[in-house]
């Protein structure tokens, strides 16, 4: 159904400003939907950070906020003041695509197509959405689509143009169940890969949180990355600067490792480091209560 996709499109990032001719595209970028089923697991944070990390590698990246009615991706990127047009303006052809794409302030090869804030999900024409993503793929190495929570209209519209999926899960029973459901709905076409977000290694060690192995023992998906629950992520959200811009945190490194994996690089298996003080160990041996 789609033209053959280059497996390593944009991986080397050698031609970040390449403009492929529209009629006969020399190559098609990869359209990846970031989804989860459950809300609040970090889809938008993941989209913002992977977009940033891929752009840092030199790739051209378009981020599409498909969460019509609940625009958020612009906030995480600190671009909220620059949003003039949104995805529905483009779909309804009231504005040119190029005009609606906001260039990121930190990464010049990263562009954002914001969601409509005062419109509703059912106003999106599914076929037009598919065509829009296809158009973006002709120009960009990666098109990352931030899917809304749920499995209804918004989900269908976010997924329609994509040919790959990243599913974001947290180590919670409800999140795992929803990812399982979403993966079932996606089917094999999207070859979904898993990002486990907000892992708290200390809690895992104490047996108070599902481990990465527990979660993926159940989901059995290719593991793309593991992100620890780090307070700095909240700080970066507060500032509107994705943590992937930084070089001093493990979480940023984890996002860059995911980007490398997406680009087809063979990077070591994702893990989270468990740091525990000696007193902590003593505490968990003798004092810690399990609940």
């Amino acid at each position, binding site marked *: 159904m789609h033209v053959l996709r280059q497996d390593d499109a944009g991986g080397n990032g050698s031609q970040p400003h390449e403009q492929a001719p529209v009629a006969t595209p020399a190559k098609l970028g990869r359209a990846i939907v970031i989804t989860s089923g459950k809300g609040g697991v970090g889809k938008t944070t993941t989209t913002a950070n992977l977009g940033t990390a891929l752009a840092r590698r030199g790739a051209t990246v378009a981020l599409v906020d498909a969460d019509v009615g609940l625009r958020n991706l612009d906030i995480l990127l600190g671009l909220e003041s620059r949003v003039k047009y949104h995805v529905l303006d483009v779909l309804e052809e009231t504005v040119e695509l190029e005009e609606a794409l906001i260039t990121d302030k930190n990464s010049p090869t990263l562009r954002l197509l914001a969601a409509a804030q005062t419109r509703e999900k059912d106003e999106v024409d599914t076929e037009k959405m598919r065509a829009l993503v296809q158009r973006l793929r002709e120009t960009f190495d990666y098109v990352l689509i931030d899917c809304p929570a749920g499995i209804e209209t918004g989900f269908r519209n976010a997924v329609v143009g994509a040919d790959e999926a990243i599913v974001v899960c947290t180590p*919670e*029973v409800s999140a*795992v*169940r929803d990812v*399982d*459901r979403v*993966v079932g709905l996606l089917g094999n076409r999207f070859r979904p890969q898993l990002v486990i977000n907000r892992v708290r290694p200390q809690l*895992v*060690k*104490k*047996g*108070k*949180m*599902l*481990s990465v192995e*527990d979660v993926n023992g*159940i*989901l*059995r998906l290719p593991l793309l990355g593991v992100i620890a629950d780090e307070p700095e992520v909240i700080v970066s959200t507060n500032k509107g600067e994705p943590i992937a811009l930084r070089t001093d945190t493990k979480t940023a490194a984890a996002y860059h490792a995911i980007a490398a994996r997406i680009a087809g690089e063979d990077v070591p298996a994702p893990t989270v480091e468990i740091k525990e003080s000696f007193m902590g*160990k003593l505490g*968990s*041996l003798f004092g*810690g*209560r*399990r*609940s």
Partner: protein
Amino acid sequence: MIEFFNKLFGREASSSTAKERLRLVLMSDHLSLAPDMVEAMKRDLVDVISKYVQVDRTKIEVSFEQQDKALAMLANIPIVGVNRDAGGPRGGSGNGAPAASSAPTANPSAQASAPENPAPPQPAVPTPRRRRRKKANPAAAT
């Protein structure tokens, strides 16, 4: 090491509770057939088996469990006796040791028991096997 001490002091981690709950909830999610469908399947299964053996309908248990990547259905069907007028697959099967559990379904012609095939003589000795396990891997999990 820490796990060992936790067990020693009888502390149960809530993550294992989470894992178990998740396992169970996903199993029933995957069997979107869900309770009434399982009931119907059980009934049909017993109807077929009852052609050959007498089963205790009140004590049938059907359960599902995860086996590697697939979900396995386990049916526990107590057999109380051999059904004499049924077109059993083989007259001799009841004579010796209790037949292998898969025997009744092995011969497809046995299904058309009544009109075409005159029932082969059945041995008088009911060889009640207490339990019979049937395994199938129909629904793929995950």
